[in-house]
């Protein structure tokens, strides 16, 4: 007689377990307030990334188009992937001495792994994370960026 009852209790347990599962999906079906989907291109105006979001490496420029990079190249040695190339330039200070300044700061976004070692190691805090994340381009060469803006110069009070 025992297997006979077991047959029915098995069916009962099976059906209740299935109904428990159906209760969950059924509940979500009737509660559209729980929908978590974000309508991405539509919410672009309101979409704000977190301050620390690692979108890309940028060089901070102030209102006078000045940056803080001295062109020392520490970031370049710290980068594990070779995605930074600092091309140095020489300039003459008013008192006639030769001084190293930044010529071009080349940043290969396509090679960057966003480890943050360049930003951490920079002695003059010239670099920061940008929050831009829509990096898709049609041509790979567009991923190579020059971070110092044209005509920019170094802030005067930065000393090495």
């Amino acid at each position, binding site marked *: 007689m025992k297997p006979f009852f077991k047959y029915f209790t098995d069916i009962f347990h099976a059906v209740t377990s299935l109904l428990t599962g159906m209760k969950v999906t059924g509940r979500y079906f009737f509660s559209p307030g729980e929908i978590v989907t974000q309508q991405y291109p539509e919410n672009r105006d309101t979409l704000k990334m977190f301050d620390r979001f690692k979108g890309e490496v940028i060089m901070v420029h102030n209102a006078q188009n000045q940056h803080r990079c001295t062109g020392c190249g520490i970031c370049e040695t710290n980068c594990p992937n070779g995605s930074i190339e600092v091309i140095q330039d020489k300039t003459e200070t008013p008192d006639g001495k030769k001084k190293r300044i930044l010529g071009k700061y080349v940043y290969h976004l396509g090679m960057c*792994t966003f480890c943050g070692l360049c930003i951490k190691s920079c002695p003059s805090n010239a670099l920061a994370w940008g929050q831009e994340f829509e990096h898709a381009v049609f041509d790979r060469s567009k991923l190579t960026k020059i971070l110092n803006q044209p005509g920019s110069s170094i802030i005067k009070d930065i000393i090495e």
Partner: protein
Amino acid sequence: MKEVVNLPVKNIEEEEYHINMGPQHPSTHGVLRLVVSLQGEIVKSLKPHCGYIHRGIEKMCEKDTYPQIIHLTDRMDYLSAHINNHAVCLLVEKALEVDVPERVKYIRTIIDELNRIASHQLWWCSFGMDMGGLTCFFYGLRDREKILDIFEESFGSRLLHSYYTPGGLMMDIHPNFQKGVKAFIHYFRKKIKDYDDILTGNIIMQERTKGIGVLSREDAISYGVTGPSGRASGFSCDVRKRHPYALYDKVDFNEILGTEGDTFTRYMMRMYEMRESMNIIEQLIDNIPPGDTSAKMKAVIKLPAGEYYQRVEAARGELGVYVVSDGNKTPYRVKFRSPNFSNLSALDHISRGVKIADLVAIGGSLDYVIPDIDR
């Protein structure tokens, strides 16, 4: 006219049927190729072929300095990136005999456990999908998103954080971190009931997993199956208990051991572990002491010549880092003992004689991450 070929008469009963599962297959969770010999629906044997995403991380490490290695470890088991980072950081700290501040230990422990929960959530949803319950996939991802948002707010990225550095942390946690974690735990304690309702208790799921893919304790040790999969077989392999690091010797948590060693026990281990991780976080989250976020480290880190080994408990098992240093700023040789690599080696053993559908379930319960196997 087609040519009539007289095929040699074979005994059909004995003939095996080989199928290639992968490299592109929905249930291999990446590019793993399993050559499965079938007899009807029954798996006779299988041969894993890995290496489709072998990137030579160990070779690359030989060229990089210690802080640079960190970001490579992210890319091994990308689902427990923080824990991988932790292994290298601990190794460097041990070699240099640096004491990291208490605050760093607290934060690292909390984040490791968060990472473990996130990893198990992704495992849960992909396991559900392997079983054919597609809805699980979205519930798991929905809840994992909450952790990733916390990560993104504090560390700037969602998956590959590179947050730990030798000696400390890249930066301090975000002021909202504690609030966010507490809100998440409150949220997830409710939502984990959905997991149980929809999959754990489900009769179909139980019937499909109980008694399938049994791995005995001896085999688990012999195959080096660690993590939740090893503990399901009763192999007490939790590195957090055996060789405590960070704060694991101070917090109160249980190492849950299974006895059956089947797919269902492996499943339950991870479900328990998610709850256990939440307990650990709750013990620590309110007590993070103030202090520095990094110990004093030299600008160029050079390990004294010698050999170092550090083990941590990653989400999928024991992760070991073996470094041979010759005193330079780059390691001489780095070897990662990745948990999935050893776990995969047991797949052939435990999936003999099961059906294809079970093979998928077993694979899901071993929870392999292919980049970690290939490295």
